[in-house]
């Protein structure tokens, strides 16, 4: 294989793996929700249902078909954008989600735009001035944040900004979003909370990645050429730490998925995660499956993207 083709081969291979993973994940999601519970028809009709009514409903829902064929049907439906019908209110799942997806994406997008640059500069800065007061402060802060559950960060934020300072509303839902100021206020709390949660990991991993490359012989060589600390980090260490850093960013941004579930619940934010938590409490399986798939797909794409960056930033493969 010619050297110039090798990275593209790896890219295609990585995409193939992602696709395969997606199939396995959807398999897991489908069977975790479909096969484990007693019987959907019984749940829907309640305990008082007659066996005839249950059997009728099962037939109507196609539950008496073999599991595998239902799985394939479900997958094909997914691919065509048919997410099924909610058990609870008989609405199309697509419609239920469509209204919420934008909200969640906006929350995630704003958070990412805010936290990635901040976290990267803090991580690189901490590595550049390793052992300094700045570095130690960053270390203590990040370790505190990653050590506590997301809801506690959120609770703390509510306590400080909404209760004590009374700057921001504690809830997002139904907040007045007519002016920009009001909208900023509505978003501020969830975004601050989520940013804290995902930045901490990113800072730690970025710092570790840069420090690892700072210990290589070629950085020592740069030192022996008279390079300044700044030059060693920015010119020599950083380009080689790109792969690990991309990985750190993707992994941290994928924490959004977990964080979003908690944050949307706490702030009563009308996003997909809130929808899913509600669906869990009503055991609305089609809705749960669809939400789960949305999260898994976004998680997978982020991780795959990071791997692709790592592959393409490796000079040996160029």
């Amino acid at each position, binding site marked *: 294989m010619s050297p110039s083709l090798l990275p593209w081969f790896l890219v295609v291979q990585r995409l193939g*793996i992602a696709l*395969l*993973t*997606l199939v*396995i*994940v959807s398999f*897991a*999601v489908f069977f*975790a*929700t479909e096969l*484990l*519970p007693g019987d959907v028809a019984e749940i829907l009709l309640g305990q008082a249902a007659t066996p005839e009514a249950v059997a009728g409903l099962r037939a109507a829902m196609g539950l008496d078909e073999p599991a595998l064929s239902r799985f394939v049907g479900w997958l094909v439906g997914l691919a065509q954008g048919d997410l099924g019908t909610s058990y609870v209110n008989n609405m199309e799942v697509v419609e239920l989600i469509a209204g919420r997806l934008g909200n969640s994406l906006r929350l995630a997008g704003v958070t990412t735009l805010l936290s990635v640059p901040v976290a990267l500069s803090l991580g690189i800065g901490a590595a550049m001035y390793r052992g300094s007061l700045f570095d130690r402060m960053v270390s203590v802060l990040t*370790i*505190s944040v*990653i*050590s*506590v*559950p*997301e*809801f*506690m960060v959120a*609770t703390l934020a*509510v*306590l400080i900004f909404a*209760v004590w300072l009374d700057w921001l509303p504690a809830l997002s839902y139904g907040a007045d979003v007519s002016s920009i100021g009001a909208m900023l206020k509505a978003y501020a709390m969830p975004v601050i909370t989520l940013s804290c949660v995902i930045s901490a990991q990113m800072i*730690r*991993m970025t710092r*570790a990645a840069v420090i690892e490359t700072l210990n290589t012989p070629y950085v020592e060589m740069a030192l022996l050429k008279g390079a300044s600390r700044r030059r060693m980090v920015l010119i020599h260490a950083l380009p080689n730490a790109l792969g690990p850093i991309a990985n750190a960013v993707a992994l941290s941004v*994928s924490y959004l*998925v*977990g964080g979003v*579930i*908690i944050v949307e*619940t706490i702030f009563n934010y009308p996003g997909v995660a809130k929808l*899913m*938590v509600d*669906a*869990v*409490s009503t*055991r609305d*399986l089609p809705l*749960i499956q669809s939400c*789960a798939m949305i*999260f*898994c797909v976004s*998680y*997978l794409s982020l*991780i795959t993207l990071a791997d692709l960056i790592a592959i393409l930033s490796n000079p040996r493969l160029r």
Partner: protein
Amino acid sequence: MMADTPSSTTPKGTTRDRTAPKGPGWRFNWVGRIGLVIILFWGLVALVGPAFAPYPPGEIVDWDYFGPVTGKFWMGTDYLGRDILSRILMGARYTVGIALAGVTLACSLGVILGMMAAVAGGWFDMILSRLLDAFNGIPSLLFGLVVVAAVGSSIPVLVLTLAAIYMPGSYRFARALAVNVNTMDFVTVARARGESTPYLILREILPNILGPVLADLGLRFVFIVLVLSGLSFLGLGVQPPNADWGALVRENIEGLSLGAPAVIFPSIAIASLTISVNMFIDNLPSKIRDRSE
């Protein structure tokens, strides 16, 4: 023969020091020691704490709700007027117990499979790695949500779910370490001697990855505590009237705006446990800690 003595970059004193971090004689700095003390404290509480609870944890003992800290109720009372101290002592058993059971299950399974994959290689390794990597493609809290939605929440379900969430990560970590050790000449020598795979895994590889694996177990324990608390906070973890620390925070979240001790003390309990584990692991001697993050 004359120069055949320990080389002088490592004078005799240092060779001794280098081997000091073995067995119980590990050295920690004071941050690590504080962490260890807090961990041991909570472990002890989980074991015997409930016996020292001043009131039955499920009983309403105060007419007032969200009561303040008093001589009678050291940590105040909750939204129903139950004693928070007693509930935290009992909650320690749920939080620490479930997390410990989950992490032990996840890590033992992950490490054993990881070492087997590293030694066996080939198809076994490839299929197992692909499968577990795919499993890793599911966000942890989400997986918990789905499973709990499907089968309902109970303690065995929680333990198994948490173990299932963290097993692939543990597998991947142990496999990476074991693959490195497996390429070492001493493993090749043992293999050339004709040793069996179980011997290679248990005698040659395991002792050399044990330190990092234990450090990794500590980190995973923290993650499990966090996810368990998160699930409980969403009302999907330990079910009322029992409560782990996350559930205690959820129950009493209304008291937040009042600054009630009922919501503050359980939060402190969670944070103190997770931060101290992190402190302890971050300050382990680097030889044990060297983990790939």
